[in-house]
């Protein structure tokens, strides 16, 4: 019986969730886009109303299902539903937004348990054109909340950057699981 695994990509509207999924998915991602009715928050012409979906097929038929959460705050109830049972979560932040530190706080609060379990990584986008706040500032936000997780500058239009986020996430989970095995021997 093929096994299924789940990965979540979350973040505010325009942070690059749909792009990130498209960068790694084996299939053309399913994306439920409609006209963006909230142009004051984001100037995108369209936005995801429900969620994005992509998948990676492993040898033997197992599947990694990748879900992108809707970025609009009114869909935040879906974040926990989608996050249940996930291998981990990738949080994307757009550094060109007015208050990206506040944006990160929202997602760190929403996924605090996942972060504490070491199953989360943060990607900060548009740092080339908007170098402030820098990664150290974002790290400070996590420390304020009593959390620790990798935070990297990325451009999710580049597949290698998306793979970097996933590889960092996998290494984190492996290191913690290895330490957990040691403590039980």
């Amino acid at each position, binding site marked *: 019986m093929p096994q299924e*695994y789940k990965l979540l990509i979350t973040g505010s509207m325009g942070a690059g969730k749909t792009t990130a999924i498209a960068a*790694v998915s084996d299939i053309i991602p399913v994306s439920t886009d409609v006209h963006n009715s909230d142009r004051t928050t984001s100037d995108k012409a369209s936005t995801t109303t429900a969620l994005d979906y992509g998948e*990676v*097929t*492993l*040898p*033997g038929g*197992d599947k*990694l299902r990748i879900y992108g959460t809707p970025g609009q705050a009114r869909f935040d109830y879906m974040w926990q539903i989608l996050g249940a049972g996930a291998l981990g979560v990738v949080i994307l932040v757009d*550094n*060109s*937004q*007015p*208050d*990206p*530190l*506040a944006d990160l706080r929202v997602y760190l609060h929403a996924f605090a348990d996942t972060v504490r379990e*070491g199953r989360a990584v943060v*990607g*900060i986008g548009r*740092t080339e*054109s*908007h*170098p*402030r*706040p*820098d*990664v*150290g*500032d974002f*790290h400070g936000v996590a420390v304020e909340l009593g959390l*620790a*997780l*990798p*935070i*990297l*500058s*990325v*451009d999710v239009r580049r597949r290698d*950057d998306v*793979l*970097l986020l*996933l*590889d*960092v996430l*996998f*290494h*984190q*989970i*492996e*290191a*913690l*699981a*290895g*330490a957990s*095995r*040691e403590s039980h*021997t």
Partner: protein
Amino acid sequence: MKRPLLSLTTVGLSIRDETLVKSMLQVVAGKTASAWTFSDGLDVDLAFCNPQSALVLVLTNRANETGRPHCVALVRDGACAQPLATSIHAPLQVGAFISLLDSVSASAVRDRAAPALAPTPRPTSTLMPMLVDDTSESGDGFAETVRRLAKEHTAGTWRISHAGLDAVLLMPERRVVLSVPLGADAAAALAGNAGCAAPLWLDATDAAHVREAPSTLPLERLLWMVGLHAPRAAQPQWLATARVRLRQWPDFGRVGMVPAHLALSALLAHAPHDAAELAAASGNELADVEAFLGACAASGLLDIEPGPAPTTPAVAPRRVSRLFQRLRGALGIGG
């Protein structure tokens, strides 16, 4: 302790941008080192300017004579900040706005407390008093000098000359222009033991020339490479024996990624290790681990753990399961 009260204004900005500055001032109220108020006059500490405005010349002449105000160009993507040396990009971000206000506040408060020590204005095209950061005269190395400069100055252009090389730091972009390509040899030379010369602030004319350089690299990559390729004698003495923990992951998006460094970072972020423990846990050569620790140290990412090492030697953890090997294979991730 009562916060100092400073004032700012706008010069030549559109109504939209002036409203933006006023709104941002309200947003950051109480979050800055000093209290700030908006003034319609020019006798202020900070001025957000349209660099193309004719009033900018008047204001900069005043700044040359009196040391006030600090003029900052408010620009949008693609616009040129010249003739002003300092700029901030619209749309304004809270963090950048606070950093700028605090940076100006620090120098303004210092000048008020000791006016006799205020920099002597130069009758040149200099738009700000020339500032020399003299904190590196203590004999700090290149990496320490760069880290301190990046922490204390979020604006301006600074040149550091060391080991026959020149590094120009562009703030707030956090990028660097080097006089030579950054290879292992150049990085090793910069890591050399000798104390680093004091950074020099570049005026608008010199800064403009540097900013036209065809290629720059992230400041984080400079520090990472300096630490990674530092000769053994230039590494911190505690590196070989101290147990350390990673306080913050390296920003591999800016420093460049080597697969082995991801595993090392994950192990070191989770628990303290010394170099030998980390080599055993990761299966890497000790020399490679020490180079990685040197890069982390140069980047200011390590905390030294107090106390002796545990008596039970660490067991080398294996990969968790075949799952991640299969995932990496399916995604085409090496390492």
